[in-house]
């Protein structure tokens, strides 16, 4: 297990001169308090620099090393450069790792990185190791690929949510790091090495077969197939490498696109607003035309009551005239029959003769019947009345004030909507006035092109793999033929090939089995930690996916698909703890600002759990993030040491032990 004993800094960032912090033996938590801009992240970077010669920013980008030296020292004494000495223990040996960045010989005032040189050496139990041994030892003790699980920035914990996204390249990279810390490459590398040795053994088998006259032809055939396979394999490897390059490019583009998300949203909104303004303008125009039509007859609205009364009177007259007219029609028909009866002197229906009295009565009736001209006149009056009523009805409708009001209201709403959109559009135009839109569009186009190319490459690789499978089957058939011959050399090479093949298959099966076993263990341990850390009693645990992404599971068995930043933080810490418990590699956890997103309850729970997450934990926190009294109460005997970073000036901080 890797345990840090002390860190000695010389002019590293704000830590002017030589400053040292020590960590006492025994498992537990050490805390270094420091307000913002005092140098907490610099301390994390000092460890990173000592181990890997790198210093990174919060965004995971490297910082040019010539910018790291203390500014005041350089200004006051003209001394440039910096140094970190890391003392640590690993597997019962004591190490001292020194890394120094100093100006090259002859350079008095270094300006850029090329003016500096870096030196580093490693002492093991007092002996300085050679460069190769030094590199091997450091790579074994703390491989850079897994350092994210030991030296981590609390602000970056949300990155682990990427593990839940199937197509995320960042998620893929984190998954690789997780597998690296869990030791999966021991098997995957072994599988690759044994695969290569297997191929080498096959070539040796070919040569052995070619030497024997009986098997020469088979040996030649075998050799040709092996060459064909190597060619296919080479093309597949090349395509796979191209795919990796494209994926890496896609990742960096994704990062740029993430930063441009706001810009893109603004541009999208701008386009939408422009459309909305145009469409609203069209609707306003149509409504204004409708309003104009309504206004031309609006005066009629003032006379609407009078018109209605006139119309009602006319309708009454119309009704009356229609009744007279209908009666007149019936009377005219009867009068014709009566006239005939008078002329014939008998009833036209029953044929009986008419008495004088009846003749007088009929004559009076005939005289009362409306004459034809009068009927025609009445018919004309009815028609005229109908026309007038229709005209009055139209005037009543045209003068409808309610419709006009409705149109006016709609028009007002539309104008407000348009004005609001125009205001927002002006704001967006102001925000995007300096933007190189062509560049943004180009970035999106390049990204889309990359996605397409990745798909094409994946298809290509698939086809190559199919061809490889076919060739391998043919190789197997020829080898089966060769196996029928009892040549001693051939048998020796065959034995080598078979051993390599079995070992390769064993390692290959081991990869899958070990991954499954690890996932089960990581899920179990992460769940145990999560239940301990979360303040939500209804959360039952965590469920792991193929990429080691963790989903919160509710007590009713359903997944919690969306989680808060705080919950994400707790899940990520649970994963960290579980990885520490299951990794063959053990080391200190150095956390910078791990409580920033957490409330007091969660902070307390995390502090209580820290001693169980790793044997050595170093916290870099500010006091409002973690109150020293609270930390002492929660950690008790597990609190090993406390330091405070004190400000001397903007460019000078001192590390002081807390009494």
């Amino acid at each position, binding site marked *: 297990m890797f345990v840090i004993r002390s860190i000695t800094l010389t002019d590293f960032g704000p830590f002017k001169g030589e400053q040292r912090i020590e960590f006492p033996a025994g498992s537990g938590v050490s805390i270094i308090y420091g307000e913002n801009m005092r140098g907490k992240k610099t301390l994390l970077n000092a460890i990173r620099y000592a181990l890997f010669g790198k210093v990174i920013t919060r965004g995971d980008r490297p910082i040019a090393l010539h910018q790291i030296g203390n500014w005041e020292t350089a200004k006051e004494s003209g001394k440039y450069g910096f140094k970190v000495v890391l003392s640590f223990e690993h597997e019962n040996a004591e190490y001292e790792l020194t890394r120094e960045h100093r100006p090259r010989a002859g350079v008095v005032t270094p300006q850029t990185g090329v003016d500096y040189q870096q030196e580093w050496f490693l002492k093991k139990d007092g002996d300085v190791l050679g460069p190769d041994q030094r*590199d*091997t030892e450091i*790579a*074994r003790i703390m*491989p850079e690929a897994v350092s994210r699980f030991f030296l981590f920035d609390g602000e970056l914990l949300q990155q682990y949510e990427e593990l839940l996204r199937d197509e995320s390249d960042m998620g893929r990279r984190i998954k690789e790091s997780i597998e*690296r810390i*869990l*030791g999966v*490459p*021991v*098997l995957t*590398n*072994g599988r690759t*090495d*044994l695969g*290569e*040795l297997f191929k080498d053994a096959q070539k040796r088998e070919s040569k052995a077969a070619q030497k024997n006259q009986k098997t020469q032809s088979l040996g030649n055939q075998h050799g040709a197939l092996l060459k064909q396979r190597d060619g296919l394999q080479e093309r597949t490897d090349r395509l796979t490498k191209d795919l990796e390059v494209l994926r890496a490019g896609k990742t960096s583009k994704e990062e740029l696109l993430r930063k441009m998300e706001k810009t893109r949203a603004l541009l999208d909104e701008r386009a939408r607003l422009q459309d909305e303004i145009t469409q609203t303008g069209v609707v306003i125009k149509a409504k204004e035309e409708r309003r104009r039509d309504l206004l031309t007859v609006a005066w009629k609205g003032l006379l609407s009551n009078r018109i209605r009364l006139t119309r009602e009177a006319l309708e009454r007259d119309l009704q009356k005239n229609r009744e007279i007219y209908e009666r007149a029609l019936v009377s005219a028909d009867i009068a014709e029959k009566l006239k005939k009866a008078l002329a014939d002197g008998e009833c036209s229906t029953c044929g009986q003769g008419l008495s004088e009295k009846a003749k007088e009565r009929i004559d009076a009736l005939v005289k009362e019947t409306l004459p034809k001209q009068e009927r025609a006149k009445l018919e004309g009056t009815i028609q005229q009345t109908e026309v007038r009523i229709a005209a009055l009805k139209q005037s009543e409708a045209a003068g409808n004030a309610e419709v006009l009001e409705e149109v006016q209201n709609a028009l007002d709403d539309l104008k407000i909507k348009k004005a609001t959109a125009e205001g927002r559009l002006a704001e967006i135009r102001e925000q995007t006035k300096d933007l190189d839109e062509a560049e943004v569009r180009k970035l999106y186009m390049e990204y889309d092109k990359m996605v397409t190319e990745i798909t094409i490459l994946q298809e290509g690789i698939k086809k190559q793999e199919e061809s490889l499978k076919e060739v391998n089957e043919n190789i197997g058939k020829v080898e089966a033929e060769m196996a029928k011959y009892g040549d001693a050399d051939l048998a*020796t090479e065959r*034995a*080598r090939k078979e*051993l*390599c093949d*079995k*070992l390769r*298959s*064993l*390692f290959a*099966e*081991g990869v899958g*089995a*070990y991954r499954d*076993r*690890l996932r089960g*263990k990581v899920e179990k341990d992460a769940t145990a930690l999560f239940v301990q850390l979360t303040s939500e009693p209804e959360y039952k645990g965590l469920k792991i996916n193929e990429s080691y992404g963790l989903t919160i599971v509710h007590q009713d068995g359903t997944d919690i698909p969306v989680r808060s930043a705080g919950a994400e933080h707790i899940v990520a810490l649970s994963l960290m703890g579980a990885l520490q418990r*299951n*990794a*063959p*590699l053990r080391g200190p956890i150095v956390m910078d600002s791990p409580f920033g997103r957490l409330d007091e309850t969660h902070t307390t729970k995390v502090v209580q759990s820290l001693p169980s997450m790793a044997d050595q934990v170093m916290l870099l926190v500010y006091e409002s993030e973690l109150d020293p009294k609270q930390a002492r109460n929660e950690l008790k005997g597990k609190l090993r040491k406390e330091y405070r970073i004190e400000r001397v000036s903007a460019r000078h901080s001192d590390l002081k032990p807390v009494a």
Partner: protein
Amino acid sequence: MKGDEELLDTVEQIRKAKFPDVPADLVQKLLLIEANYTENRVEAYRRIEKAIDAYLEKQAAAKEAGD
């Protein structure tokens, strides 16, 4: 069970069940090489090859002695 023991145990279970004629000590030796040289792939390959050669030579010598 610690991480490294977990790994050895996983492989050993598969070996016993599916590849019993592959010697356990050779497998362990290869796993140890890969664990110690994860960051140095060339060295790992070289040492794996050497370990297999040594095993095969030993087998051949034993067979010759038996004959």
